[in-house]
């Protein structure tokens, strides 16, 4: 069994993420300009929005994985859903934390009962619940089926999160980049796009490693039964051999009693 989940592909992705982050940091923190109304607080856009994008990506992966397990019992896609939900929790928390920090700078409060913020919090809890449900179900197939049905409910929630700013008037600003165009230009737009690419690559790196960990864990789960059976058989064989040895020892220890020899009468009489 492999002892590492790394590969050439993951190393390349990791190097790209590290180098890209090293380039993105000065772009985001220094080279791009301040916003007219938000000032330097606008720089959160280069972290908060890509984190939200990767949160959506995770939810979509969970949804597809759930569909594929329910339709085709695809173990591969079940493991994709498993990895995506865990990583989705991480990025959802990142969205909430960066959003809270950004909100405190711009709105003067860490939290408002805004439609987008509330629905994002709900989505985060559901993703965590998906992870908890998988961890609480001991049976491999039962785990996949139960979490798959829950996984189907995540996509409508993500749709509500995304369109909340359009459906309900709240504190959260509308989309910076949309079908009709972008509200940011030039280096800001490039930095935003670049950050999104880096974040997506980081997501892919995490997904690949987590998928491989899940694969190894599943092998252990499934292989564990076969291993246990083999061990029980070996134990039974040893027990049989021990019993035979003990029987031999017992025979060797027990003195042989002289048995009377019965002489037959000579033939033909005396």
């Amino acid at each position, binding site marked *: 069994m492999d002892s590492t989940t790394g590969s050439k592909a993951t190393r390349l992705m990791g190097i790209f993420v590290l180098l890209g982050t090293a380039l993105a940091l000065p772009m985001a923190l220094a080279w791009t300009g301040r916003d007219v109304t938000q000032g330097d607080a606008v720089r959160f856009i280069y972290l908060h929005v890509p984190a939200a994008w990767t949160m959506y990506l995770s939810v979509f992966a969970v949804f597809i994985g759930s569909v594929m397990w329910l339709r085709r019992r695809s173990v591969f896609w079940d493991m994709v859903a498993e990895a995506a939900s865990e990583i989705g929790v991480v990025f959802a928390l990142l969205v909430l934390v960066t959003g809270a920090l950004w909100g405190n700078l711009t709105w003067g409060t860490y939290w408002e009962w805004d439609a987008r913020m509330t629905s994002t919090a709900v989505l985060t809890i*559901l993703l965590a619940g998906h992870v*908890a449900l998988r961890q609480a179900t001991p049976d491999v197939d039962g785990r996949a089926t*139960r979490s798959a049905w829950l996984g189907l*409910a995540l996509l409508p929630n993500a749709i*509500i999160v995304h369109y909340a700013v359009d459906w309900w008037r709240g504190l959260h600003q509308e989309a910076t980049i949309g079908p009709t165009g972008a509200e940011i230009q030039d280096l800001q737009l490039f930095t935003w796009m670049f950050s999104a690419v880096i974040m997506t690559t980081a997501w892919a790196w995490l997904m690949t490693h987590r998928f491989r960990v899940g694969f190894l864990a599943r092998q252990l789960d499934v292989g564990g039964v076969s291993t246990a059976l083999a061990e029980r058989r070996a134990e039974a064989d040893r027990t049989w051999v021990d019993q035979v040895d003990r029987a031999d020892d017992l025979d060797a220890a027990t003195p042989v009693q002289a048995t009377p020899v019965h002489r037959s009468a000579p033939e033909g009489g005396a």
Partner: protein
Amino acid sequence: MISVLRSASLVLRKDLLAEWRSRVVVGQILPFSIVLLLVFGFALDPDRQVLEAATPGLFWITVLLVSMIAAQRSAAIEAGDGATDGLRLSGLDPAGIFIGKTLAVVVQLVLLEVVLALGVTVLFGRELGGWLLLVTATGLATIAIAAAGTLGGTLTQGLAAGQTLLPVLVLPALVPVLLGATQAWEAALSGQDGGWGWAGMCGVVAVLALLLGAASYGSLLDEG
């Protein structure tokens, strides 16, 4: 395969009969709901104005919390005696079983809500009105809560952490219902406009929850 409606009516009758014989709703859940109302009163300082203003929210929070108990009980009726296999092999339509169980929870919740409505009128001093909107919103929200709770109960049935996991999974999904029902009640009680839209939102969630539950119940029963 027995038809969906026939299966639903059989399971509804079975679950209500089990409840009638055990008296768990009347003997345990109802007193718990009244205690919740009293606790809200103590926590919010028995200031009538605060309690009156918060009546719709407090009512629906109480309904949500007791619905978790009702949903767990609904899922555990067969599990306690190991009768889940019997249900699986009975030939009843799985969608019908889900609908029957949901309706049983609806009946229990409606009984609780009638008592709770009296309770908020007496304890919080809020007079009820706008009956058409109130009853419609309550009905739709109750169906949504019962369907989501029954589905959640089945998802978590038999798990060691099932009792704590059920509220974590179901309550976030019912946030739109809590919001819609509370807003619809507020509109009904204060005579404001817009309540029907909120009631409609509860209806949408009810339909989605019923469809998801009916589609998933068969495979969840097999895995249980």
